[in-house]
């Protein structure tokens, strides 16, 4: 392993904003700040200790000003929902290189209540405005649905396969008091739900919520003196395949193939050694395609991988143990929550909560997807 990162940096604090779900009395920047405060408190740190700031959606300038942080290192990589997973890798690099000592990654979105959000201009002279917008593709659902149609035609993936992912994820959500939807779900429920953009039913689609999330990292050496059990960054990877869905190279495989290989190789870990996987689930197909790209199963075998509750509570390979974007929360760029939940599982935070805790969890993959299957960030985390 020729790198200076693996195993040297730890996650020492993770948190959501005070409330997640429907939070009509908080602006975007408030959600960032609440989550930041909560994650730092968990580690026994304050904003005074932070010298590295990483964020997307809101700029590092605004976040630093709001929190009173004067950073020595900053990163505003904004490539959609994968951004915050990519930031974990960047923070690990910065700390390992001695460029900052305490890195704070913040996220916050008022996806549902729309308090304090900026606009998304779609100029008619942009690439998307000229070559995609005139054809009425619902965004982002239609882009993912269109990609899924190819996987179904090529590999025989079915609506039942997709529905099983939503059902298994709901199983985990039923164990999480913070999850927005906790009632049991059946495959029939998913298939009977309203068709949004064929082949996706309503229950193939993620929630739209308000939420913030934050992550604090420092060197493993310093982490040993802090309040939480350290969770170590073992590997990281990132990539981009396209921006516009019409330019995706292969509708059945995306940038997770690159980011995943980089992360697994750096960590020296094989997919079959993992105890759990936290995989971005904007839509059921997002999880299925990503599982194949990460090598959790072979290309085309995603349907079988998720079949019969194999990834549900009590199943052989736990996936999305917080209830995911499909049932727990999804404010728009969900990636930060894959890291938060992986960290809690690896710290054994749920050990008094029965099957919610993945037994003896030592190794996890957290994966973020951004844009329309466009960008990817993968992190391999281990219990120190």
């Amino acid at each position, binding site marked *: 392993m020729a790198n200076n990162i693996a195993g040297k940096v730890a996650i020492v604090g993770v948190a959501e904003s005070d409330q997640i779900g429907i939070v009509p009395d908080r602006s975007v920047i408030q959600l960032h700040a609440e989550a930041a405060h909560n994650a730092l408190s968990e580690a026994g740190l304050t904003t005074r200790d932070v010298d590295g700031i990483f964020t997307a959606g809101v700029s590092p300038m605004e976040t630093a000003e709001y929190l009173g942080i004067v950073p020595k290192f900053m990163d505003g990589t904004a490539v959609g929902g994968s951004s915050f997973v990519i930031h974990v890798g960047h923070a690990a690099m910065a700390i390992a290189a001695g460029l900052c000592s305490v890195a704070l990654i913040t996220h916050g979105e008022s996806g549902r209540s729309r308090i304090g959000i900026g606009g998304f201009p*779609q100029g008619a002279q942009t690439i998307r*405005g000229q*070559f995609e917008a*005139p054809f009425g593709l*619902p965004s982002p659902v*239609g882009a993912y649905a269109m990609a899924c*149609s190819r996987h179904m*035609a090529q590999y025989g993936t079915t609506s039942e396969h997709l529905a099983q992912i939503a059902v298994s994820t709901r199983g985990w959500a039923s164990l999480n008091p913070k999850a927005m939807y906790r009632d049991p779900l059946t495959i029939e429920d998913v298939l009977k739900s309203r068709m949004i953009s064929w082949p996706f039913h309503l229950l193939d689609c993620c929630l739209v919520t308000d939420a913030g999330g934050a992550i604090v990292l420092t060197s493993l050496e310093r982490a040993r003196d802090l309040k939480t059990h350290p969770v170590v960054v073992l590997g990281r990877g990132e990539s981009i395949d396209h921006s516009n869905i019409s330019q995706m190279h292969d509708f059945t495989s995306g940038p997770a193939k690159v980011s995943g290989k980089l992360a697994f190789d750096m960590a020296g870990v094989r997919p079959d050694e993992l105890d759990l996987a936290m995989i971005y689930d904007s839509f059921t197909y997002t999880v299925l395609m990503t599982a194949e790209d990460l090598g959790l199963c072979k290309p085309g075998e995603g349907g079988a991988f998720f079949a019969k509750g194999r990834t549900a509570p009590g199943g052989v390979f736990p996936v999305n143990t917080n209830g995911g974007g499909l049932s727990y929360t999804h404010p728009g760029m969900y990636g930060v929550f894959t890291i938060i939940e992986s960290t809690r599982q690896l710290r054994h935070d749920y050990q008094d909560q029965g099957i919610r805790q993945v037994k003896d969890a030592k190794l996890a993959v957290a994966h973020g997807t951004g844009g329309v299957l466009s960008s990817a960030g993968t992190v391999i985390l281990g219990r120190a």
Partner: protein
Amino acid sequence: MADYTKPLPMPDPLTKTFWDSVKAHAMQLQKCGDCQKFIYYPRAVCPYCGSRNLAWKPVSGRGKLYGFTINMGKHPSTAPFSADAPYVIALVELDEGPRLMTNLVGIDPDPTKIKVGMDVVVHYDDVTEQISLAKFKPV
């Protein structure tokens, strides 16, 4: 045509040749003089080999359905299209290689009738006096 309310492209100096060719019902795309690949959307640099040796060439207008979705109802991101639902948005792979976002027309928006891989041909839709869109229909 004057009451067309859906998003329309605003051609730029480079892409104007493409939009003019669609308006003339004779689509042209850039072809790379070095790697010989056709390119879509139009660009300043070949995305396959990095060359700037690009020239406009006519294409057949024939291809295959690479993937599709059917917008079933009212979605906030496509409000101007709501009256058309259900309608088919498709990616078509031209015989010359590039893939285009388009609408599939001339067929029921029924997933049991539309097949990934089916043969399609261009159908020019003159949506306004200035702009035509290249849509596709089954052969």
